[in-house]
């Protein structure tokens, strides 16, 4: 059996300890823990469907080995909000019709969160660059951009939770 190591991960505020081999990716570890909202689209860092926040930074979890994330704090799209309290980004994505097949959306909302944390009032160029690691095949990004702009306005007015 390959060598395993105990890895400590905090995911959406919940602590986990698990023994993992060195080649196990953060994506595989998160999905094995039941965080299946983190999607696998390419396993190569091309599509961004697996994006999560690791200590506040958006990363492709498929390119990050779980050992590297040891001791880190992970936030998935579910950690941002849910039916009992939507994050302004989630709220805007729902109302703007930004969601079609939805498979890219968990990664895109996480990437958008990281973008708005860095640039609270993003320009069109910021939006394009901020999502350039996330592929969407359905929407043409039109309503994704408009939802992020709308959420940015809400967040700038202090609406961390709608």
């Amino acid at each position, binding site marked *: 059996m390959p060598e395993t190591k105990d890895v400590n991960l905090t995911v959406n505020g919940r602590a986990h300890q698990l023994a993992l081999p060195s080649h196990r990716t953060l994506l595989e570890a998160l999905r094995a823990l039941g965080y*299946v*909202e983190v*999607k*696998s*689209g*390419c*396993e*190569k860092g*091309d*599509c961004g*469907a697996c994006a999560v926040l690791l200590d506040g930074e958006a990363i492709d979890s498929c390119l990050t080995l779980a050992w590297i994330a040891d001791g880190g704090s992970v936030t*998935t*799209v*579910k950690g941002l*909000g*849910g*039916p009992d309290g*939507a994050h302004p980004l*989630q709220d805007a*994505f*729902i*109302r*703007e*019709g*930004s*969601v*079609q*097949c*939805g*498979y*890219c*959306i*968990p990664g895109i*909302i996480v990437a958008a969160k990281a973008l708005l944390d860095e640039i609270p009032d993003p320009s069109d160029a910021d*939006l*394009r*660059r*901020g*999502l*350039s690691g*996330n*592929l*969407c*095949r*359905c*929407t*043409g*990004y*039109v*309503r*994704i*951009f408009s939802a992020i702009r709308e959420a940015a306005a809400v967040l700038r007015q202090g609406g961390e939770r709608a």
Partner: protein
Amino acid sequence: MSDTTVEAAAAANVVFRQIGRPLVRTDAPGKAFGTTIYAGDVVMPNMLHAKILRADRASARILGIDADRARQLPGVHCVLTGLDLPDRQVVTDIPGQTGGKTKNTAQPILAGDRVRFYGEPIALVAAETEDIAIAARDLIEVAYGPLDGVFSPAEALKPGAPQIEGEGNVVAAYKIRKGDVDKGFAEADLVIERTYTTQVQEQAFLEPEAGIAWLDDSDVINIKVATQVVEHFRSVADALGVPHNRVHVQAMYVGGGFGGKEGMGIETMLALLAVRTRRPVRLVVSREESFVTHGNRHPFRIRHRTGVKRDGKITAMKVDLLADSGAYSKLSPYVLLYATIGAPGPYRVDNLHVDSVVAATNNLPTCAFRGFGTMQACVANEGQMDEIAKALGLDPLEVRRRNFIKTGEPNATGQIIQSAVWSDRCATAALEALGDRRPEDGPVKFGRGIACYQQSYGRIRWFKDTSEAWVGVEVDGTVVVRCAVTDIGAGQSSSLAQIAAEVLGVPMTKVVVYFGDSMLNPLAGTSSASRALYMSGNATKLAATRVRQNLLGRAAQEFGVSPDDLDLGDSKVFVTDDPSRCMNFERLVRICAGEGIHRHDLAIFRAPFSEGIDPETGQGEVFPDFTYGAHAAEVAVDTETGEVTVLKSVGAHDVGQAINMQAVKGQIEGSALMGQGFALCEQMLYRDGQVISPSLSEYLIPTSEDVPEILAIVLESRSGLGPYGAKGMGEPAFAPVAASIANAVADAIGTRVYDLPITPDKVVKALKEKAERAARGDGRK
């Protein structure tokens, strides 16, 4: 119906409470919160993990397969090869409700003695972990012997070519013979002949194929899978040799389909392994494997010869089409039929001659992809319209105007168009939205292009397409819709909620839709052919209307009026002329429940049926109806680097009736970017049949950095065959996009790239050739 009656219908004062509004789709919250479960997210106790061994070459004899070491690996439960499944074939054909099959679309589940394409499945493994399954797969040894392959359809049709499928590799061929083309060409002032070629496009949905299968307590094979077609349960059953009622397909919310999850996918393999192991078996394919798991878009070579009068009126048209089916026919005969009928575009051509062939090669099988032959035909016919305009010195839209087919006129196969044809007003609106032309900017040239189309919605008439839906009202006034339509992300289930809400006068949030289940829901047919809303929407409206009639019949007694004098809205039943006389919907439902009045209904909707076309002339009614519209694009071309940037992209379409304004605009916006990818950058690359671009960093789809200004313009003629006059939009929105961009590039650089995608090297080459022609004094524009 004439254009004037269409006008009257469009102008009619129809008041909708739910229909047409940009309401939040029923599937949106779960997808934004991350709570939606896709096929690859499903796990079960005691499940095994499957892997597929695939051929690493495109053409070979299989001399032997040694799976002993794989079978002996601890943790391996099952290894299946073609030797274990002699004569086991599976079909992709017509997964409708009739069970009829008109084409041979069978292919082996696992290759037997011969490999026909790169990536063809050779063996299946089921093991306790994914890692063990991979190790076992890699222990299987295949002894290959050489076998010549053929990799282009033109080569495949030559005498002596390696035989792949069909007689002489002809998978299907059609012809249209209409009017007198010789006479038409003799009358022409000018004859324009051009050849257009299009490439293989990959669907590149974000969710790779995934599923899980298990046997339930009744020994029924259950399969949860990402599919556009739950009706494949019949093909799975036939392939396994079990009765149809022993296979139950449950389609999950699908992470994108675009036709790529329409053909038979991994269902049969999952079913085989679940039966052999009597354990749940899960299979999730990698992105690289996904590239060879489903059929891609057919590449076409389309040769147009068009005779025109000086005023641009077409007098004759001769079109030759050649497409590549790859190694198995799958849905190629139908794709070719669409392209054949689509060849003349949305124009009236009385003297028409079309010949088309789709040939088998050792390339990856091609199958369904949004636009399904029509969009390739559109690239050619809309390029041709611009070439005609250029040669005659006329405005491209004006040439189109002089030829547009009109309501009441026959199309290519002689089918009389019954619905509105708003090509002109859509094209005009799209061009207007582009705004003023930009000034030149050094080596950067600007150009604009328009493309129009005629795209069918609904399936071929001789498939005898039907859809069923069940609508019921609970005693608390909430509504349930059950319909096995698959939801591939375009709002297929949500639109049914909106329709039921409209008919029953309740908010859409009061409606729950159960979709995509072949056993527990009434069968609805496929989410393909731009038919889901048309067919299932009509079935749902029919069922909901009968429930409404039952409820209003009882309410009429209460108010002492006729049921016709009552209406449902705002969760109330009320007298139409005096809304103060009303009752809560919930109370009415409780009264009906207490008296045993039927509060649910199962309805079937039948599309128009016909028996086929004349094989010699191609004449006959093929589709239920067509959608018309236009796409306009403005591009910037750097003449030094050849780089094309799309600046503005406008889709204007007569959608018939928007059911959900957000959703229909979403189709148009998404099409703009997907079509841009086809026009400019997407191409599956092969070397001797081997895919050499099997990742999203090698196969490039447009990203957020490539998004132009996209506008969606929705026109509503209310003349379609769908609910409330809706037309299909999933494919129509996509059909003209690439053609409009190709035309815009040609406009910018004054010469045309005839071979898609229009990559920088081709632009530079075309400009160089143009300069050489000018230097030689060659007059060809």
